[in-house]
């Protein structure tokens, strides 16, 4: 699957708002809370919002850290690291 075809909303719907996510600083929250928090950064994350693919990778990263990223989405992490 091409990562560009995956829009953030579909991606979120796949996991649900209760899916656990984690951040590098050790914060463990739900995906819903992370999205609410993300809205606080509406100016700061302008780049991310303008680039849906990048945003999906960002979401995938936190889901992976929370241990809930599906195997079929692991390519998103590889893409990010490449």
């Amino acid at each position, binding site marked *: 699957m091409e990562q560009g075809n995956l829009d953030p909303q579909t991606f979120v719907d796949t996991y649900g708002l209760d899916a656990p996510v984690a951040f590098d600083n*050790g*914060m463990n929250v739900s995906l819903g809370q992370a999205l609410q*928090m*993300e809205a*606080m*950064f*509406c*100016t*700061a*994350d302008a780049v991310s919002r303008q680039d849906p693919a990048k945003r999906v990778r960002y979401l995938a990263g936190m889901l992976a850290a929370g241990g809930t990223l599906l195997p079929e989405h692991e390519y998103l992490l590889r893409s990010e690291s490449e």
Partner: protein
Amino acid sequence: MERMPDGGSLEQLQEPDLLEAFADREVTVFGFTGTFRDLADMCPVDLSDPRVTLDAKNDFVVKAANEAGLAIAPEHEETFTRVTEKHGLERKFTVAEPPGAGPPSVIVRPKDFVPKATVRIEQVITPPDSRADPAVLVQQERTTTEVVMAEATSGVATEVPESNEMAYQETVATHTQEQTFQDEPVVHALSERMLQEAQVQRPEPEGEAMSVSTKDVVMMPVEASMQRVVEQKALPLTQPNSESAPVESDMLSLPSIPAESFSEATLPAMDHVLAFDAASAEATAETVQVAWADELTKEPVEIYEDFTAALQTFGELSEMPATDSERDLFEVQPHDEFAEQAPVPPVAAEVSKRLAALDDEAKETIAPMVKDIIGTMHGLQLLEASSAEPETVVAIEAQLEELCKELLGAIGIEPDDEAVKQFIDVLRNPRFRPPQPELSQQLDLKHIGTHEAKGPFAQLGGTISDIEHQAERIIGKLILFYVPHSTQAQLQLAA
């Protein structure tokens, strides 16, 4: 130091870097807690990137702080106002005014002030000893007050932060050393128990004497009482006006004192007590504290009964004009509570009525809640009397609010904000006191020693007066019937 954006205007250059200022402050937002630094790390973009403008970072801080309803320093108000208006956000943040700026947000209470009105959670209570030092207020405001308020506002965190707990323990320790009634066994035992239980995170078994201390109410009652409510969602309440109202014998009332005569029996004593209190407002506060401390040694059901009686008495007292001693007493206070003689809040009468109408099963369920409330209230009185850290006081006020909501909900009263506020106003009113012990109990106290009698002794003005009066009569009789020997001899000679 963050790099300022290139080409920024002078105004922008003068903007404070809120992320730097708030970096280490904890905030609870959307149900999770972290420092602003932690929250900033959740941003998809590295906020330390110099390409990120100061405005962008400040916008984030303001949004998060506003969402959490934090109290901010006055110097940040302009920025906060501008950002919230820019984004069309509801203003949820509050401003802690500098010391000496007046009453609105920062209330500086005298040590002995027992307020009638509840201090709103948004307010910062400053102990007298920090009033002279603005740095103390600013530091306090920056460190923990917002955290407590955020947690209380969000309704998520129910545990007092560790820093608050430590402050509370220090306060309790200070209190036990400084208060004049430090040797009074009941309070001393209570304080010791508070310190012991500071390390215990679990509720005590039901039915244990003194199962609720002020420490308990900091850490436990919300969870414990909530559990009780969940377990017993529908209390078998009996509406006072319904046909199924219990017969009088089933209803809770003051033991051995009919309701009609209760006022007659207690009001003169109350006035006498207030006359004593007029000598010192501190004595009044202490009297109320000790009276409630004494209550905490009782079984929950007894406390429940006294609480119900106190509510009833409060209603009766509040319908009477204030005594001169009360006016004298409170003239020195910043708020002349008795001058206005506000009518009894309807919620007080309603709660009193509903509590009195509970059946035995419901009574046993409600009694621990009432005990929790009394414990919280007493803890608050102790903290206020001992110049506690403001964040601790705010935390316990929030706790008291939660407990009152819980109680009102449990007895079928809609626990809206206004009702809860009115009810807390009643609890915090100096006129809301446990009922006076019966005369026989008071006389018993006279024989149990200085320490034991010291607490309740101040309340027993009426009894002391009776005792003194009896003694005077006895002395009078002795003088009357005493005839000096010389006079006896003269009388014999005359005969």
